[in-house]
């Protein structure tokens, strides 16, 4: 047997980014939490209660307890993050032109950030007027 030294060539060890892995994993974990938060929220507001009965007082009463404010803020944050990351993947899949993709992604991140700030502000700043 001849002596060879090239048993399988090795490239310099790569250091790939974990972003995609974490993004993927986050989608599953946030999905699990959203089952509680989003589905829970929806059933409470739309099924067990009726939205016809939903008025200013109802909201004010709910946000009287900090727990519901935390619940809603978590829902806001997680669904925005989950949705944004989801849309990031959708844009990545469908826009092969790099400039267009970059623009679209920037718009997405900008929108999400604005609505995150707005939503957070509403939840924190709300003071019942009644």
């Amino acid at each position, binding site marked *: *047997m001849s002596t060879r030294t090239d*048993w*399988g*060539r*090795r*490239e310099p*060890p*790569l*250091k*790939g*980014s*974990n*972003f*995609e*892995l974490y*993004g*993927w*994993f986050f989608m599953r974990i946030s999905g699990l939490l959203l089952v509680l938060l989003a589905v829970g929220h929806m059933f409470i507001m739309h099924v067990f209660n009726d939205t016809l009965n939903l008025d200013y007082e109802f909201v004010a009463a709910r946000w009287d307890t900090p727990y519901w404010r935390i619940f809603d803020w978590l829902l806001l944050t997680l669904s925005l993050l989950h949705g944004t990351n989801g849309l990031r*993947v959708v844009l*990545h*899949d*469908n826009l*092969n032109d790099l400039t267009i993709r970059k623009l679209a992604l920037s718009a997405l991140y900008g929108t999400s950030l604005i609505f995150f700030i707005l939503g957070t502000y509403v939840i924190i700043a709300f003071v019942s007027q009644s």
Partner: protein
Amino acid sequence: MDIDLKILRYDPESDRKGHWEYYTVEADPEERILDLLHKIKWFEDGTLSFRRSCAHGVCGSDAMVINGENMLACQVLVKEVSNPITIEPIRGLPVVKDLIVDMDPFFDSYKKIMPYLINENEPGERERLQSPEDRDKIEDTTKCILCAACTTSCPVFWTADSYIGPAAIVNAHRFIYDSRDEGSKQRLEILKDVNGAFRCRTAFNCTSACPRGIQVTKAIEDVKRETLLNN
């Protein structure tokens, strides 16, 4: 019996838009779709172009969309598909002529995952030992014939051509789970890229398309979990 075929034709020199062409050929129910294509090519219309070689499903030349699904033309019999038979080139790769697509991007993806055994230890005079159980772990994925039926059936690949595709992941799996290989860390590193395994959205088209019956999605899922656990 008479079989009607409807074939998507494209010729970069004269027909840049592509069109459907209709043929009728006489065939036995036991004949392969490939035999019908040959009848057209040899006795009717020599310009019809497609790849083929082995004619029994082991070389991976003739993946095409037959009645809306990816198959090897040499592996499907006339009696197994409904008449008329529509045939198109596989999707997501540039069409070169008729049913022939440019396979280079596909093979480039394959080459990216370091598809060769990596083990720097001197193996000695005799074979490396491997238990039958360890060998079984790679039984499924070593069957791959690189026909591209899986990759070109994947809805993610159709729109995002940078996606490395199921075939490359299957071949990475073949080495990652080989007890003799030591390069799995690097391969997982490559596959966790934006264009790697995490682009897969579990559509399962690949698994149904694979003419070798490889559990393609399962292999991809193994790789995803392996990446997660090893990080």
